[in-house]
């Protein structure tokens, strides 16, 4: 165990790693936004009284929840282009994989929040003469939102960690950039420890911010 640490090799390529970090943040944010849209659509489909609308959404969610993300990445990159007859670049494939996957999980967060609201609230809204739609918008969703915050944040963290899989498609996020720096410097110990630390700082600081936001939101309620 006489290993001489040498971080100078990493330091001289820190610009490459920072580009990677930026790539990670970018792909995570875009996939969170798209995932929310996918999740909202799926959740409202799953809440529909019509079986033909509910069924496909349930199948979609169950499929994504029960298969590994890396399979989605490879499927979107190598298999989907055959179906649509159009090549996807690593970025597009990764965003598709991440946002559909997180959409499936967000759908469960949204649905869970809405179904957790007591029946009496629906009945009360109905008694006031509100339509189902109005009750949903004015009564149910505002209350459900508060309950969704914590699981939503949790899911977004999972998604941010999953972005590392985009490296397998050669998208220039943090892990991929680290592999490049490693092949230049041949200092795997320093390089991979550094990016582990970068991920840690990114996620840890985000979780601190999230905890603060959560506390403030729950105080309002």
């Amino acid at each position, binding site marked *: 165990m006489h*290993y001489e640490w040498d971080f100078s090799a990493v330091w001289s390529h820190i610009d490459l790693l920072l580009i990677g970090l930026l790539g990670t943040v970018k792909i995570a944010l875009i996939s969170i936004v798209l995932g929310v849209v996918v999740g909202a659509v799926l959740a409202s489909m799953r809440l529909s009284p019509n079986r033909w609308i509910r069924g496909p959404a349930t199948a979609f969610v169950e499929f994504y929840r029960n298969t590994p993300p890396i399979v989605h990445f*490879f499927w979107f990159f190598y298999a989907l282009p055959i179906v649509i007859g159009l090549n996807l670049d690593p970025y597009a494939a990764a965003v598709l994989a991440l946002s559909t996957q997180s959409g499936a999980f967000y759908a469960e967060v949204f649905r869970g929040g809405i179904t957790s609201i007591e029946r009496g609230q629906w009945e009360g809204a109905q008694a006031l003469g509100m339509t189902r739609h109005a009750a949903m918008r004015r009564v149910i969703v505002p209350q459900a939102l508060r309950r969704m915050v914590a699981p939503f944040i949790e899911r977004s963290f999972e998604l941010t960690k999953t972005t590392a899989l985009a490296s397998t498609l050669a998208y220039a996020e943090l892990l991929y950039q680290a592999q490049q720096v490693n092949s230049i410097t041949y200092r*795997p110990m320093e390089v991979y*420890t550094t990016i582990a630390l970068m991920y840690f700082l990114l996620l*840890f600081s985000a979780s601190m911010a999230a905890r603060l936001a959560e506390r403030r939101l729950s105080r309002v309620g």
Partner: protein
Amino acid sequence: MDYTWDFKVVADNFPILLRGVWLTVELWAVALVLGLMLGLLISLGPVSGKRWLRIPAIGYVEVFRNTPVLVQLIWFYYAFPIVLGQQLSPITAAIMGLTLNTSAYCAEIFRAGIESIAKGQWEAAKAIGMTRSMALRRVILPQVGKRMLPAFTNRAIELAKVTSLASVLAVHEVMYQGRLLSSTYYRPLEILTVVALVYFVLIYPGSWLSARLERKLALRD
């Protein structure tokens, strides 16, 4: 969409995929059992009430939970051997990464479970002359076992999905075999779709059982 599907490739190579499935199951079982044991051990740090045990244990859990699993696997395969002075086989590195990652999550589950038991139980055990470890074994753990079950089944499901990342280290589990076959025969659509279905068939029964279990336990409380 004038693509002609050809599942003959999959049928011909099914034994290869099946061998991959076995390795996936093995990885899962070994990492789960080791991860549970190590997790229990680590959870004793925060519950021990001793500062020098608590802080390293919390640090360990936070590091593994706030970095991507893929980075951990790559770190154990490419970086760790340098400190160790000995190359690790892909499967050893994969098992190490998966086990330690799982142990961090299991430690959190154990800790939350143990801390959910009222303090009075500890005091009562002490009052009848039990040592702390005896109280933990005879009084506390038997009560929290049931409460922690849904969290552990969820972890087991997550782990089943995460084993697919071992393919990045060239461990010949089912995802790796799928990637290999799809690049050999150039039939990614059929092969990757089948791989996704294989995972679904493996994992879905677990999720189904876990959901049932959760509902049952929720009803009882």
